[in-house]
């Protein structure tokens, strides 16, 4: 094809990508936060029930937190995972009874399937019994994690 047409098609394609970028930016790889208890209340036949309590052994950890547990599922190639892990550790260190368990699911496909992981990191907040109360698909905002710890275990900094 001739040059003007080539330029026009290329320009249109770039414009399309700009729109896509703007749209995707509006929900900035929006970390999806799900209240799992609320989802369970809505449970109708065929919809998933409240997730079963998680035990430490499943995750390969010695124990869970006495007040709450922050679980992070990471993969080997995950640029946002180290930062999220640091964040969770900082938040946990400021509170009693909150443990952090980080699991590299690269070697744990069973966990990736059980929890239907779609992105990394994925962060769960477990209560004292090990029941998942909320789930973040993507890096969580610090305030959101703190709010959930407050609600789940009444632990403030």
């Amino acid at each position, binding site marked *: 094809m001739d040059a003007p047409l080539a330029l026009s098609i290329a320009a249109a394609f770039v414009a399309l990508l700009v729109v896509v970028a703007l749209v995707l930016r509006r929900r900035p790889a929006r970390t999806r936060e799900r209240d799992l208890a609320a989802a369970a209340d809505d449970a109708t036949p065929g919809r998933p029930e409240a997730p079963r309590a998680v035990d430490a052994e499943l995750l390969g950890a010695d124990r869970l937190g006495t007040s709450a547990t922050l679980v992070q599922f990471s993969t080997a190639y995950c640029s946002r995972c180290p930062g999220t892990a640091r964040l969770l550790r900082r938040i946990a260190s400021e509170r009693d009874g909150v443990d*952090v368990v980080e699991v590299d699911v690269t070697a744990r496909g069973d966990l990736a399937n059980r929890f239907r992981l779609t992105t990394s990191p994925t962060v769960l907040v477990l209560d004292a019994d090990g029941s998942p109360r909320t789930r973040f698909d993507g890096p969580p905002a610090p305030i959101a994690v703190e709010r959930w710890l407050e609600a789940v275990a009444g632990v403030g900094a």
Partner: protein
Amino acid sequence: MSGVASAAGSARASTPAGIDPRGPRFAAWITSGLLVVALVLALAGTSTAVVAGSPTLPTLPAAERAGDPAFLVLLVIAALFAWSLVSPRTQPWSALFRRAVAPRLAPPAELEDPRPPRFAQLVGLVVVGAGLVLHLAGVPFALPIAVAAAFAAAFLNASIGLCLGCKLYVLLVRLAPR
């Protein structure tokens, strides 16, 4: 007492030193610019040439296919991807960022694992490489399609930091249970 329990297998024994995350984004901008040039050339070149409803690329000798300006530009782009895989620090955009751009910026708030951006370079090399091979084999339209795909990934990475390689990796983990 709060504590930290590290699950078995989560310790990354040899985590490489972190890099300024703005470096790969800078490289992605430059790559995007080169790919736009390649896209225009590919659309205007032998890959899309059609005469009387038939693409003419298959009728050209391999030397002519390889001589298409878009092919040559894409070859350079592929070489740059390969360079960043083989020797990330000496790669031109990486060196340019360190010498000319980074000193003008505030130190990075956080460092990132260099492995995901490297994986993205590999994905780029595979996509661009496929376009080059198909074009050389005489497949019409392969060049602009490959360039468009590579551009989309590079541009989204540069502009909004979307890392398709990371997502691909998680998907692969789930599809290959161990």
